[in-house]
């Protein structure tokens, strides 16, 4: 099939310059790549790449600093929000975000997460929730759904033994330090556009020093869930979204 680009055509979509040329190591169909790109697009469009500092987590997205062409700092497991607090305190004029997965933010880093939001640190926290520990081989995470089969819950997650899936986003929305809390996804073009808007809003709020903005992205894990990427997105819509409904959870009065 010919792919001729005629003279009267203009480029309407391309990879943002704030993403490096390094090919991503993520599995085919993984939502991390989309979240990386959308976050970097917003930073490019706002022209704040030189003033932005990101904090990379431990987990699948541990190499986020290879892909995001902004200043980055790696954090110990679960401590990205604590490191971001330090960066924010030392460099108050910068834009600071942390990027974490569910095993990082909602399991080992629960304490740091809650206290960072409770202090109302003026940062953006990006939380990618795929309900599983992807990097280490698909173990059960606090966010795994009831009945979900993982390598450490081969008969499905039993809530009587293993507890209920943790809705940490709803939890922290209760804290006074949380300014803007929302849950989004990246499985359709519409969802991607909504996420981009949420990131943009968050950085604008950060500029006004409003407090913690927390964006959860419900994502997939085709390898951990043992599905094709297309099946994984369907499964996510049918099973994850009823438990983790998309939309704004805490919105400042000025945005209502």
């Amino acid at each position, binding site marked *: 099939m010919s792919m001729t*680009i005629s003279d*009267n055509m*203009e480029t*309407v*979509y391309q990879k943002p310059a704030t993403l490096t040329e390094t090919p*991503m190591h993520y599995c*085919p169909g993984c939502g991390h790549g*989309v979240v990386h790109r959308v976050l970097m697009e917003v930073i490019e469009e706002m022209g704040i790449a030189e003033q932005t500092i990101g904090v990379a987590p431990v987990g699948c997205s541990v190499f986020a600093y290879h892909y995001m062409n902004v200043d980055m700092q790696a954090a110990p497991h679960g401590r990205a929000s604590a490191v971001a607090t330090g960066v924010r305190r030392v460099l108050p004029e910068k834009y600071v975000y942390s990027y974490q997965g569910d095993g990082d933010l909602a399991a080992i880093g629960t304490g740091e997460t809650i206290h960072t939001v409770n202090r109302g640190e003026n940062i953006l926290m990006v939380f990618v929730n795929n309900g599983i520990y992807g990097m280490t081989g698909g173990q059960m995470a606090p966010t795994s759904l009831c009945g979900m089969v993982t390598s450490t819950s081969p008969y499905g997650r039993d809530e009587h033994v293993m507890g209920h899936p943790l809705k940490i986003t709803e939890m922290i929305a209760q804290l006074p330090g949380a300014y803007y809390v929302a849950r989004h996804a990246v499985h359709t*073009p519409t969802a991607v556009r909504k996420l981009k808007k949420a990131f943009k809003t968050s950085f604008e709020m950060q500029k006004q020093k409003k407090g913690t903005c927390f964006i959860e992205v419900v994502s997939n894990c085709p390898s951990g869930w043992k599905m094709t990427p297309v099946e994984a997105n369907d499964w996510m819509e049918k099973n994850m979204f009823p438990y983790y409904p998309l939309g704004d959870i805490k919105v400042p009065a000025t945005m209502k």
Partner: protein
Amino acid sequence: MISGTVTIATEICKGCELCIVSCPQDSLGLSPSINHKGFRFAQLVQDNCTGCTNCALVCPDSAITVYRETKSSKRASNPLVASQAA
């Protein structure tokens, strides 16, 4: 209908097929051959792309660049294009 096209970085593509299911025109499909990573990659299989950017928005590897025909009114107001036409 406004026409467009895409270019796909075939060595970056991992063949996840998310662009294929997101395409409203069914313009995309998987290649019969594989790239150096061993993946069949996405490619244009029909010449009916409208440049809607859906495929690029859902691509996890940012492998897709989208081009779209500019509207004639926009072209007329663009001095570069107008001088070419003259």
